[in-house]
């Protein structure tokens, strides 16, 4: 593809794109005029039907809870896929064992010898002091999903940050010690399984999958909205487990492999 053809191709594409774009904009409703009936209906009925003051969470974990199960499974599968893809490979660990050309490796190590400086006292104190409040805040976001913005997903990600802070204050060894691999995987699996279990409860009593069958409680209290609160906790567990796992494999890929190449000599 020569430059002239490329330029013409670009110009034609731009003109075509803006034509279609303007055509699409023309028929849009004016700014602030919402034409979907479902949103208005839900805004009116959700608080009475589900006793949840955050309609977004009521929609996510009740009216379309099955979609959320799908989304959670997507996260689960992508974490598994990433772990599989980033696992330490034989080639990376045995880089300098029995190879004829060791001097190249030595030259490489000269540039890799510099390590990140140890965390300063101020950083250690600040990050470690944040660990407790973040755990409380994460659980607050998870358990108050039906009342205020937030929910299992956002809270779950916040719950995954304390180990990351511990890593920032210390090193990967400490991170590994407080996040035992089998526990992280168990928590992640328990979250997904709990979600499905709550859904199956609806089938057992003769209703639909993910039917909201628990007592709804008083609107505005923490224990309200029936199964929405339970599903939020399950999602929080699954997401926090998944993200800790992600953080672990990413840190391992960037730090551990390199250290092993260094330490292998």
């Amino acid at each position: 593809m020569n430059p002239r053809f490329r330029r013409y191709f670009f110009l034609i594409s731009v003109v075509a794109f803006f034509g279609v774009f303007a055509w699409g904009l023309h028929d849009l409703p004016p700014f602030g005029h919402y034409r979907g009936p479902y949103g208005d209906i839900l805004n009116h009925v959700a608080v009475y039907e589900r006793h949840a003051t955050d309609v977004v969470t009521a929609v996510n974990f009740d009216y379309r809870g099955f979609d959320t199960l799908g989304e959670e499974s997507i996260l689960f599968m992508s974490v598994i896929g990433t772990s599989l893809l980033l696992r330490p490979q034989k080639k990376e660990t045995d880089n300098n064992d029995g190879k004829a050309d060791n001097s190249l490796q030595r030259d490489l190590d000269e540039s890799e010898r510099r390590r990140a400086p140890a965390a300063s006292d101020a950083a250690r104190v600040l990050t470690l002091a944040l660990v407790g409040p973040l755990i409380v805040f994460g659980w607050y976001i998870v358990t108050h999903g039906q009342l205020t913005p937030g929910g299992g997903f956002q809270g779950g990600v916040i719950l995954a940050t304390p180990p990351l802070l511990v890593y920032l204050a210390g090193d990967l060894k400490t991170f590994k010690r407080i996040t035992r691999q089998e526990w992280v995987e168990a928590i992640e699996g328990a979250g997904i399984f709990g979600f499905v279990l709550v859904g199956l409860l609806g089938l057992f009593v003769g209703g639909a999958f993910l039917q909201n069958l628990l007592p709804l409680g008083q609107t505005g209290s923490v224990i309200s909205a029936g199964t929405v609160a339970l599903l939020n906790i399950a999602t929080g567990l699954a997401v926090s487990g998944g993200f800790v796992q992600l953080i672990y494999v990413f840190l391992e890929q960037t730090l551990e492999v390199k250290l092993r190449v260094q330490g292998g000599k």
Partner: protein
Amino acid sequence: MQLLQMLILCFVAIFGTAVVLTRDPRSQVIGLSFFGLVLACMFFIFQAPDVGLSQVVIGAVALPLMFMLTMARVRRNTEEHEARKRHEKKGKEAA
């Protein structure tokens, strides 16, 4: 449209363009974090605090991980390249 909404949309457009136009990866990461912050404010101003919260947590936890991995990989490639060059130079001097 309110003034605040117009203002925040302009900010999103400016920061988004700035991120795309930045070439140095390290400056780009910092620019992108500002862009994420502006984006979260935009969601909040347009009355979607749930989405804003999601944007904040993803921007604070997931995005830096991607950058860390990418930049480590880029740096390792550069270092390997430099080491190979040093190595070849040494070989020539020995010969």
